[in-house]
């Protein structure tokens, strides 16, 4: 399937200039700019429509009043329209399961294959940070991002849910539920005491900081005005139930609370979805400010692997505006590296984009400080808490293996199967690194991460064998 009336640029055996993995803001903006500069571009995305998670379904949103999802969401429609008219070849519902220097392998509705590409841009975005609390695997426990996806994709909601955690996305989803007239049981805010004071000290004079702060405060005011019960400084969160969620329990100060509910939406920020970049072999470092792994990139998004670039939240959390800018910057750098534009043209194009990105990102230290999840919410202390959802490995098992001298995350797989389930470490990788660091007194960088291997997503042997 092609976008608009784009030519088929990726015939068998042909080499494309730029293959992009992901059609969120970074992937779309990169495709638009690369196509403008005359590059042959192919974009693979696992969703049926462009937009990524942030602009999911934005070209055909459910028939809800526009203020429900809000102007920041609907602003994505223009980018999607430009992407579909860009001339880049667009392959929706496609899974890229292997990436190497100069080629990638994919499956999709039109079959699959291997595509040669002079440059590869990984724009796979972010995922919600794991929230390992007792009972988080019970049916009825989902993420706040999942609640928002159901709203955007199918106008689907659930009444009387409890939302718990911290971060801009959590408050946004609660506000969107309220605008749609949905009853909310309670908001349990896990933002640690003193976070706002610490964050304000880092706000500086950034204008984007002031607008972001105003937006955040506006959401909180909207939630309070709606009369939602808000519990602050929530600690020791747990989901309770046998075969499904019956209640949520927590501690405020020294008082334990319990609230019966059938649905709990958890959220404590987002982290780069690093599996593709890690599987390719891109070098990664632990970012202590964002508490996550991120690929080591230069200013244009070039990774440590020749010809492989990363743009958007997959390279470090910066939000949709900065993601689109980083996609454009990467596309210009790719065009320059391939000799399609000269150095003077490159610098003239990059200058304004880089300064806009700097301005937009000035607010990040403030946000990172304000919404830094508490250590106890990231690094479980109760032995019964499952760390690895897929293989059901709890914190106690991992702590015991560490005590017996297990050297790192890759060995822990062999001892316990932790990280060896179908999610390939996405839902436990960050937790295992931090738990290991906590138990051994080493830094997350010293502990390292699982070695992620191809296929990036489970595929059939038939897919691997090819047509």
């Amino acid at each position, binding site marked *: 399937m092609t976008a608009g009336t784009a030519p088929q640029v990726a015939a068998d055996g042909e080499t494309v200039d730029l293959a992009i993995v992901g059609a969120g803001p970074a992937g779309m903006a990169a495709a638009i700019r690369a196509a403008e500069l005359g590059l042959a571009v192919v974009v693979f995305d696992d969703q049926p429509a462009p937009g990524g998670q942030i602009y999911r379904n934005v070209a055909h949103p459910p028939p809800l009043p526009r203020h429900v999802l809000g102007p920041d969401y609907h602003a994505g429609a223009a980018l999607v329209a430009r992407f579909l008219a860009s001339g880049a070849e667009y392959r929706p519902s496609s899974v890229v399961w292997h990436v190497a220097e100069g080629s990638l392998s994919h499956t999709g509705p039109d079959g699959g294959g291997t595509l040669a590409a002079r440059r590869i841009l990984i724009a796979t975005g972010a995922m919600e940070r794991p929230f390992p609390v007792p009972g988080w695997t019970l049916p009825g426990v989902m993420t706040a991002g999942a609640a928002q996806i159901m709203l955007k994709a199918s106008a689907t909601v659930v*009444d009387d849910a409890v939302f718990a955690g911290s971060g801009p996305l959590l408050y946004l989803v609660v506000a969107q539920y309220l605008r749609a007239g949905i009853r909310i049981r309670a908001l349990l805010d896990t933002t640690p005491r003193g976070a706002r004071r610490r964050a304000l000290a880092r706000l500086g004079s950034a204008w984007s900081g002031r607008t972001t702060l105003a937006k955040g405060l506006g959401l909180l005011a909207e939630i309070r005005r709606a009369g939602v019960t808000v519990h602050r400084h929530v600690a020791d969160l747990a989901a309770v139930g046998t075969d*499904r969620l019956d209640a949520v329990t927590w501690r405020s100060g020294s008082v334990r609370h319990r609230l019966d509910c059938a649905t709990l939406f958890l959220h404590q920020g987002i982290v780069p979805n690093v599996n593709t970049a890690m599987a390719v072999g891109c070098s990664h470092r632990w970012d202590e400010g964002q508490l996550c792994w991120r690929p080591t990139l230069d200013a244009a998004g070039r990774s440590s692997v020749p010809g492989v670039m990363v743009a958007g939240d997959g390279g470090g959390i910066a939000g949709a505006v900065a993601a689109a800018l980083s996609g454009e910057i990467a596309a210009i750098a790719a065009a320059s590296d391939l000799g399609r534009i000269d150095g003077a043209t490159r610098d003239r194009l990059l200058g304004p984009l880089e300064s806009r990105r700097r301005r937009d990102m000035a607010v990040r230290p403030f946000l990172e400080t304000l919404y830094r999840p508490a250590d106890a919410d990231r690094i479980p202390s109760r032995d019964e808490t499952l760390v690895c959802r897929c293989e*059901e490995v709890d914190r106690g098992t991992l702590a015991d293996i560490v005590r017996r001298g297990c050297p790192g995350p890759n060995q822990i797989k062999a001892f316990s199967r932790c990280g060896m389930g179908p*999610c390939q470490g996405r839902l436990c990788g960050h937790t295992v690194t931090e738990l290991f660091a906590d138990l051994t007194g080493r830094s997350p960088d010293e502990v390292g991460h699982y070695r992620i291997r191809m296929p990036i997503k489970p595929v*059939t042997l038939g897919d691997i064998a090819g047509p």
Partner: protein
Amino acid sequence: MFRSLTEPTGRLVTVSLDGRSVELPEGDNLAVALLRAGHGPFRTTPAKAAPRQPYCMMGVCFECLAEIDGVPNRQTCQERVVPGQSIRRQDGARSTGSAAAPAPAARGTP
């Protein structure tokens, strides 16, 4: 209980859910449509047979796996409702010696 705020955009079509006929809106996200239909659990885990339901809805958690048209381990949150499709719950680990899954038609060899 999950519910839709709007009329279904797709026409209602019949699918088979664990052998029962169920009407779902064509083209809707399959995991969402199944949640609205009250389906659950979606699967039980290979390790301890614990019940699981969708968690992330964006393809990273692999909790919403089901057998679709004979192919196991499909992520229902990444699939759409197709008329006549057959969805089956996955219980525990897959037994060895089970019949090999037929190749899905969409990926047929040329």
